[in-house]
């Protein structure tokens, strides 16, 4: 072996091993994904409570849910026997809207509505901003979910179908029923909400069904 060959080989080996060892830092950049109780999905039996911090997590009163006036809420449920307001992720904030029952049309999951009350995740499916509720005259909507970020518009009477703008999917509907004076979750999101993979969604669902 010539001296040049030896030095080249030695250099190549050290660069290779050294370089590979430096790659190990990449393993540290992505922290483990831990699911805290506040970040779990709304589950059947959860009670919807006011998202407004001033209301201190009180259950949403039926009298506050009127046509033309929405209420923002978080699901509150028991995780391992402890009451938890699931406000840890934006997708769990939901819009409670009320329409005349005849106004609600497919693809809304009508079984998941009660007395014309329909509930959707408030997080836009495009890039995850929280949507606002306002009139959208150019599409003849009195009460539409409009994303302030890139103009996604959802029709709340038709399963939050996308009527304008870029969102790739409708807002996820959360089935509910009215129990006494409370709004109670009656199932899981009917479609994938923002920022959760199908696998994660299914795992969490199974976790709840076991419990």
């Amino acid at each position, binding site marked *: 072996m010539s001296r040049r060959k030896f030095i080249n080989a030695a250099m190549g080996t050290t660069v290779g091993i050294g370089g590979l060892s430096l790659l190990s830092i990449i393993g540290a950049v992505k922290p483990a994904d831990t699911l805290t109780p506040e970040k779990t999905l709304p589950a059947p039996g959860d009670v919807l409570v006011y998202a407004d911090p001033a209301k201190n997590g009180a259950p949403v009163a039926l009298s506050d849910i009127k046509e033309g006036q929405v209420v923002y809420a978080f699901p509150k449920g028991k995780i391992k026997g402890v009451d938890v307001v699931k406000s840890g992720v934006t997708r769990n904030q939901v819009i409670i809207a009320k329409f005349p029952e005849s106004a609600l049309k497919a693809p809304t999951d009508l079984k998941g509505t009660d007395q014309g009350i329909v509930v959707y995740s408030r997080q836009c499916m495009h890039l995850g901003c*929280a949507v606002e509720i306002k009139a959208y005259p150019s599409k003849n909507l009195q009460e539409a979910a409009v994303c*302030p970020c890139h103009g996604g518009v959802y029709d709340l009477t038709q399963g939050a179908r996308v009527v304008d703008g870029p969102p790739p999917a409708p807002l996820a509907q959360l089935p509910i029923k009215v129990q006494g004076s409370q709004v109670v979750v009656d199932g899981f999101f009917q479609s994938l909400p923002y920022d959760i*993979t199908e696998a994660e969604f299914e795992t969490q669902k199974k976790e709840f069904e076991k419990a």
Partner: protein
Amino acid sequence: MNQWLDERLNISRLNDKFLRKAFPVHHTYFLGEITLFSLIVLLLTGVFLALSYEPSTRLVPSFLDKTQMVPAAYSSILRINWMPFGDMLRRIHHWSANLMVAASILHMMRIYFTGSFKKPRELNWWIGMLLLVVTIITAVTGYSLPYDNFAKTTLGVVVGIVQSVPWVGDWLAQAAFGGKFALDNAYMIPRVYGYHIMLLPAILLGLTGAHLLIMIKQKHTQPQYAKRIAYKKIVGVPLSTQQTPIALMLAFLMAGIVILFAAFIPVHPVEVFGPASDNPVANIKPDWYLLWIFGVLEMIPASAKFELFGGEIGPEFIGGIVVATLVLLVMLAVPVFDQSKENLYYSENPTDHPKRLAAGVAFFALLLVWSVAGYKNDFQWPVAPFWILTFVAPAVSYFVTIAIVRGIKSFKAADERDRELHAAAADD
């Protein structure tokens, strides 16, 4: 002292080799300098801001209202605002960032329209493009740091765009921002802070150094008047000492103007947006230099999605990454279209190259259309006109520019003929 230093550091050689180098003087040649000065102002004010800023999403009692729990980053911004000249410091930093982006874009336009990217300066064009991109990324990470609701929404959108990359998006976003996007993600703000004050400025400084050294090595392009004075000779004034006072004056004038702006026009008043929360921000818009991407994101319809080898390609990926990458590739490709073998000495007159001029005008017309599309949502405009304008506006501006250049040329030619005629008449 000079002699003492010279004996140890051989200063006179540095002086002869670098500091006496002559640089041309022309009013459009200062745009790059302004970019550099803004960077210096940003580094100086940034150091002071970093001394008082706390990169954390941990909830603490608000600096102004102890009963309210807000993220520590937000609270520290309130504290900086309260410090003597603290708000000024933030405003100067923010205005300088705007100025740096603006000056670098104008600088790039000057290089493009005068053909200064041509051989041998292609490398510096590419480095300049990288500088522009890194500058913009630095700016975005910067206005995410206060962690007010505007910053949080911006960050959410940025994370969403990274996440939308097919196949690796989820991993990429979690690696870059320390896990999933959440209000209380403890890693996120320290990550962005690290990028903003260490990684990106280091890249910026390195690239700036390379940009300047290459410019010195290749020599600055000469203005047209230099051709008449001394053909293929360098016409200009030496860096030391004649160019130095000009540069200093420019730097201080710029600093003065930035400080005037900062004194009278507030930027990013965090109290208006409130601390990061789940509530939406009405009429949210990115800074002006990203408005075109924002517009594109609004224009790409919901139906623009398909699956490719198990990866999901959606409107957010197309609008946020694909279009931006294409635009950047077009810009990077500029020197490739020029096939001249000769080295360029003189800045060219833009009207001597009508096609290049028109292509540049068309390019900026397109960005303008997309930027206006960013306001589509506020006025509930339909999307169709913007799609039509996306094709029509660049085409129209291309041909109008060429027509105007031709018009000017024919006027000039007519003038010339007139003058010759008169001169001939006077001879008689």
